């Protein structure tokens, strides 16, 4: 009984002192000017953002990409019309005020089709990147964390996947598997193909990082404390490599949009009735008359692919430099 009381008093005293010190700290912080405070407390995210802001070209990329997202996802809400609205009276009209991007061979509004195609391209790119990133982190961290035979086996496997030239294999896979699926499943198939071919680079990077992290004190401590393997990886290792993952995902996203449009252009990607930027260009350039006399049919989707991929690459490049300034321009 006595002991408990004593403890309680002690605790209260402690709490008091904690409160006191908090108050003192708050007072001190108020005294610090804003500038000084920025110098003292600055989170890693803030550091990265500050570095990123320095890069004009990266900010430009962010702006362009945001604009493309707004046009793709917000404008269609206000102009509801079906992309398959046929108007036989305005076939192959050049861009004008009602049809910003002109019309196609069935008199369909081309702006609408390009925006819809863009959404598909962005979706496919995003999901393929998610799959690739997930696989890369999973396989890379398992290989790096456990080492030995598992590491050897996984890395040999990654080497085999990597040794194939990307595009021919993607085309072959798409042709071999594609015919059994309908259009919407085909879109999923393309995402999965891009995902399962694209994880090797990230896996190698993550593995390398983990191999060096594993030797550091905080990991030895985590191990000594008996923390589960899963938590060691998820709570202690992943936060250390998250910046690399973000950069790799950004650049991978840009690459995947490009590959998807290439596949669709060759006829091994998205197929009718779905549409994507690559498919629009394929349809537009099937006849040389269209290439020469109706350039809006291929220029608009082409410029949009370029702008999207370029802006995402600007962002990724800026992020990479912001995260590791020593690594400038690699």
């Amino acid at each position, binding site marked *: 009984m006595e002991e408990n009381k004593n403890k309680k008093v002690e605790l209260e005293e402690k709490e008091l002192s904690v409160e006191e010190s908090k108050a003192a700290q708050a007072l001190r912080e108020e005294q610090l000017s804003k500038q000084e405070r920025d110098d003292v407390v600055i989170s890693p995210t803030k550091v990265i953002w500050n570095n990123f802001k320095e890069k004009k*070209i990266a900010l430009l990329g962010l702006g362009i990409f945001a604009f493309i997202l707004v046009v793709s996802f917000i404008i269609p809400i206000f102009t509801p019309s079906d992309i398959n609205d046929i108007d036989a009276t305005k076939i192959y009209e050049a861009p004008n005020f009602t049809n910003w991007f002109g019309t196609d061979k069935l008199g369909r509004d081309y702006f609408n089709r390009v925006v819809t195609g863009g959404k598909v391209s962005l979706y496919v790119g995003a999901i393929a990147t998610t799959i690739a990133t997930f696989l890369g982190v999973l396989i890379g961290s398992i290989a790096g964390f456990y080492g030995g035979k598992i590491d050897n086996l996984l890395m040999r496997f990654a080497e085999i996947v990597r040794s*194939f*030239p990307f595009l*021919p294999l993607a085309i*072959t*896979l798409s042709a*071999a598997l594609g*015919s059994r699926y309908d259009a919407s499943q085909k879109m999923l198939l393309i995402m999965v193909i891009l995902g399962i071919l694209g994880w090797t680079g990230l896996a190698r990077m993550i593995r390398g990082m983990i191999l060096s992290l594993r030797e550091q004190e905080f990991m030895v401590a985590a191990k000594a404390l008996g923390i589960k393997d899963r938590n060691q990886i998820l709570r202690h290792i992943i936060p250390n490599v998250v910046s690399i993952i973000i950069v790799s995902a950004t650049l991978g996203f840009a690459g995947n949009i490009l590959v998807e*449009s290439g596949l669709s252009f060759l006829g091994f990607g998205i197929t009718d009735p779905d549409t994507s930027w690559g498919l629009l260009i394929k349809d537009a350039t099937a006849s040389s008359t269209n290439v*020469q006399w109706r350039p809006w049919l291929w220029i608009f989707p082409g410029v949009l692919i370029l702008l999207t991929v370029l802006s995402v690459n600007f962002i990724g490049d800026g992020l990479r430099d912001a995260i590791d300034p020593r690594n400038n321009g690699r």
Partner: protein
Amino acid sequence: MLKYIVKRLLYLIPVIFVISIILFALLNLMPGSPEQFMVQCAPNQSQQQCEQAREDFRIRNGYDKPLPTQYVLWITNVLQGDLGESSRFNMPVADAVGPFIKNSIILNSWVLVMSFLIAIPIGILSAVKRYSFFDNFWQVFSLLGISMPSFFFGILLIYLFSMTLQWTPLSGMITTGYQAPNIFAHWWDIFKHMILPSTVLIIGSLAGTIRYVRSAMLDIIRQDYIRTARAKGLSERVVIYSHAFRNALIPVVTLVAFSIPALFSGSTITESIFQWPGIGQVLIRALNEQDFSVVLAMNMFYAMLALLANLIMDVSYALVDPRVKLS
């Protein structure tokens, strides 16, 4: 060195086997069957006769056997140098694909030479004048090159230079119906057809190469011996061109060596835009026409080229850099 190369080659054997098994299994998922293309039914043939002919074909080529047996049959033939028969060309795969490889080599060797000739000086100057306007310009340019969809760029060039200005031929490799009076005229004709596709490919590969050379050079400039050279009071010219440049060439040489197998591989998209009769187009046509043996052979070929490129890169690294020891 020799021991190392032999060891690496031996290690490649199981890898190639694994790849061949994966590819073989994968391609058997392809739609259609070879006999439908190989055995055309004549109009005067009855349905039954036709089916019989197809069945004969299946049995003759072993397509009726279970998949593992088919694989063993195929791989034994491949090991003896027989890649199978192309159902589209009606001749052995090697003979059908050979001429297209030659065309790809013509285009790619020009691209390879030009892109290194342009990229190496730019990469080195970018590193020396880091953060200057020159450097920033090429950094942005190389991002632009990475982001440019090759098919869009190709069509843009055709639109501008072939259709509007009519400076260059539209597509193909030689002018149809044109009889070159001599060998020079013949090559000049090919060269004219090569300008646009090679521009697309050069710009595409320039981007990566410039960045690679630049970062190799930046690594070297950071080294202690460069500081020593400067501290000795050597002029900046000597430091850069005699001390740094030579060492920066080490990774560049390995990159060149790594690119050599790519000479044979062709580029699917660019070749199909410009109708360049190269190996990249063969794959697309083979896939569209379900030419099973060609698709299989091409994918094996690509995989082996890539594995070879890796080996060449490692070996050349050891050859040019005395500090690297292979083990």
